[in-house]
């Protein structure tokens, strides 16, 4: 497997690096261009770039894995990931762009005229970025293990994947900036979607019936591999969380979540998206507020198509792998009685069943594309927060633009190193029997959503839509939301009781932490005063003068070129 896998990987890196360098050569070297691509990214391009940033290993490998292992309950990851952009379209996209700053912390600091808000927001943003980066690095290791299967320099295949992908993307971000990381994720998303479409066509063409598969899977209890006391493995029936004593079934709710668990997960994903720094930063690159809103509508449509296909393929893997395990010897070490040990392998295995090693290379390349584009967006957000919000404003206020860029690029290296180190410590094999299995990658990404949705989103919504929000309230809301989310997730991990409803709720605590942060923001805001120039801020955020001006300039430019 090493030869085609390595070939696919080299081809991917060469194309990605080529696009990055080409985009970079066209760009001016200003901070505006490095971080925001000159604020001239078109609607469809930006929508594809947002999808490329957003659709990570959790979406490409994790959603299919969640569906594979938990059936209907796993579908809620996909629905929640897609749903998250509806609140963005409704509440944040246009006002954020109209206010027009470099980053989420920059927006909040300017909105409240407070450097304290900026500092607290940067800390929360960096935590979110780190929480999002770690599962991407884990996904890199998993994909490399299956794609290449060999380590380099004495490292295991998993560790090699983590190190090579993290290092490669960090280098591309440092060279390319936002312009390079706009064209890359946009093209990478199209490649990702094409991979899913190809696999779907192949699977359906081979006779897969979606409805028939779900009906067949419902006939037998859902099972999952477990390790016995003597170290051997066997299949065990998954317990029904809604009907005590009954076995869970693929097409019914209850394989993973109790009554509250489903709502908790959906709310965590819905609210989390609006606070993800690498997604928010993309809206600042739109030419106008209206374009940002229309971009989000495109994202909702494109993401919906992507997730619908990922869910179908997760279902297909559950149906097809048991039969294929009889005919394909290479599946033996990956399965226990026809069920995959690592659910994240579902999509990859499907590619190899239908396309041989070449098919595996195509799907694995898709997985790496998802990881590359997401890591790129996250690292750029990290660079923006440190370089512009902290270094250029507080550490070295007299810094030249070049020095600020260098500081941001140093942040890229630090964030990459921290995430890779965490991924090497949190090996998937060691976590197989913990509360975060199954669907390891999707669950870990959900923590980033929880942190963002519990802390940044409530404050962001109030900052945009309630004039009474003050700097004091924003700081209080950010801190309380973040602390509550981290503490509850920590309790969930420490419970060590395996998969259970309490753990599920604790591991997706937005349903508790977000309202708490909102209430604290409102109460604390009552004790402070809004910025003196609130009317000007409101005109800037909710008025359309700048949009009209930009549209007229665009029309004049078009007329002059005719």
């Amino acid at each position, binding site marked *: 497997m090493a030869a085609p896998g390595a070939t696919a990987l080299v081809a991917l890196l060469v194309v990605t690096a080529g696009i990055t360098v080409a985009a970079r050569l066209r760009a001016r070297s200003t*901070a*505006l261009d490095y971080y*925001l691509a000159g604020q001239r990214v078109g609607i469809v391009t930006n929508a594809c770039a947002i999808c490329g940033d957003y659709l990570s290993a959790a979406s490409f490998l994790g959603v299919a894995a969640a569906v594979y292992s938990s059936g*209907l309950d796993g*579908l*809620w990851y996909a*629905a929640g990931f*897609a*749903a998250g*952009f*509806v*609140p963005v*379209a*409704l509440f944040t996209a246009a006002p954020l762009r109209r206010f*027009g700053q*470099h980053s989420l912390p920059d927006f909040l600091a300017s909105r409240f005229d407070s450097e304290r808000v900026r500092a607290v927001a940067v800390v929360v943003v960096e935590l979110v970025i780190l929480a999002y980066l770690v599962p991407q690095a884990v996904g890199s290791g998993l994909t490399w293990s299956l794609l290449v299967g060999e380590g380099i320099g004495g490292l295991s295949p998993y560790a090699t994947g983590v190190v090579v992908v993290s290092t490669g993307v960090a280098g591309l971000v440092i060279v390319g900036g936002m312009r390079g990381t706009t064209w890359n994720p946009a093209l990478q998303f199209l490649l990702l979607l094409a991979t899913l479409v190809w696999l779907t066509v192949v699977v359906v063409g081979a006779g897969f019936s*979606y*409805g028939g598969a779900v*009906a067949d899977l419902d006939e037998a209890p859902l099972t999952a591999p477990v390790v016995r006391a003597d170290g051997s493995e066997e299949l065990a029936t998954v317990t029904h969380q*809604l009907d005590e004593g009954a076995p869970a079934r693929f*097409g*019914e*709710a209850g394989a993973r979540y109790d009554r509250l668990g*489903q*709502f908790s997960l*959906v709310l965590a994903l*819905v609210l989390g998206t609006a606070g993800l720094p690498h997604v928010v930063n993309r809206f*600042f690159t739109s030419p106008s507020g209206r374009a940002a*809103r*229309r971009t*989000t*509508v495109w994202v*909702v449509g494109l993401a*919906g*198509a992507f*997730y*619908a296909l990922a869910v*179908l393929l997760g*279902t297909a893997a559950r149906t097809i792998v048991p039969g294929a395990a009889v005919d394909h010897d290479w599946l033996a070490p990956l399965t226990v009685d026809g069920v995959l040990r690592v659910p994240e392998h579902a999509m990859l295995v499907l590619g190899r069943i239908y396309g041989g090693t070449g098919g595996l290379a195509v799907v694995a390349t898709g997985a790496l594309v998802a990881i590359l584009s997401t890591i790129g967006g996250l690292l750029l957000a990290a660079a923006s927060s440190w370089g512009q919000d902290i270094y*250029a404003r507080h550490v070295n206020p*007299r810094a*030249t*633009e070049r020095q*600020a860029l260098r500081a941001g690029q140093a942040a890229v290296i630090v964030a990459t190193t921290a995430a890779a180190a965490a991924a090497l410590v949190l090996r998937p094999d060691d976590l197989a029997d913990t509360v975060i299995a199954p669907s390891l990658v999707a669950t870990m990404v959900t923590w980033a959503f929880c942190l963002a949705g519990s802390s940044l989103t409530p404050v962001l919504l109030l900052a945009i*839509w309630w*004039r*009474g*929000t003050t700097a004091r309230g924003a700081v209080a809301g950010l801190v309380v939301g973040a602390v509550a989310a981290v503490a509850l997730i920590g309790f969930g991990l420490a419970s060590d009781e395996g998969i259970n409803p309490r753990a599920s709720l604790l591991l997706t605590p937005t349903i508790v932490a977000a309202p708490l942060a909102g209430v604290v923001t409102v109460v604390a805001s009552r004790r402070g005063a*809004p910025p003196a120039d*609130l*009317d000007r801020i*409101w*005109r800037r955020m*909710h*008025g*359309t*003068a*700048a949009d*009209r*001006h930009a549209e007229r300039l665009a029309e004049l430019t078009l007329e002059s070129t005719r």
Partner: protein
Amino acid sequence: MRHSLRRGSAPPTGASAGRPAEPTEPTDSADDFDTTAEVDATFRTQRRVAVGYFVVFLAVTLAVPTLTLVLGWWSTGRIAGMSPNFVMAAGGLYVVFFLVAQAASSLADAVEDRMLGGGDEHLDALPHDDGTGST
């Protein structure tokens, strides 16, 4: 009526030593200007639109797991081999999300077209917030 009121000029967009370049600020030329009253009225309308659509979005989304708990047919019925619950979670919700986002976006655009840019002169006479959090 277009106000002769002018805000201060927009902050500089160019970079200088010690300060990174600022992103593009809204520009107030004589033709591209919104009054506080206009913006305030538009903001309140947009907030009603956004909250209304969000309630619809949330109700439909949460109805899917809720029906699992209260309606047996939702989980056991069959539509082309799949339960209604599965059909909605696997595909139906994505259609709903897109329709809600599209409808809300179109209405928001229409509200801005109608209420900003000099369309409704009477809006200048509307009361507006004093910045004390009364909204």
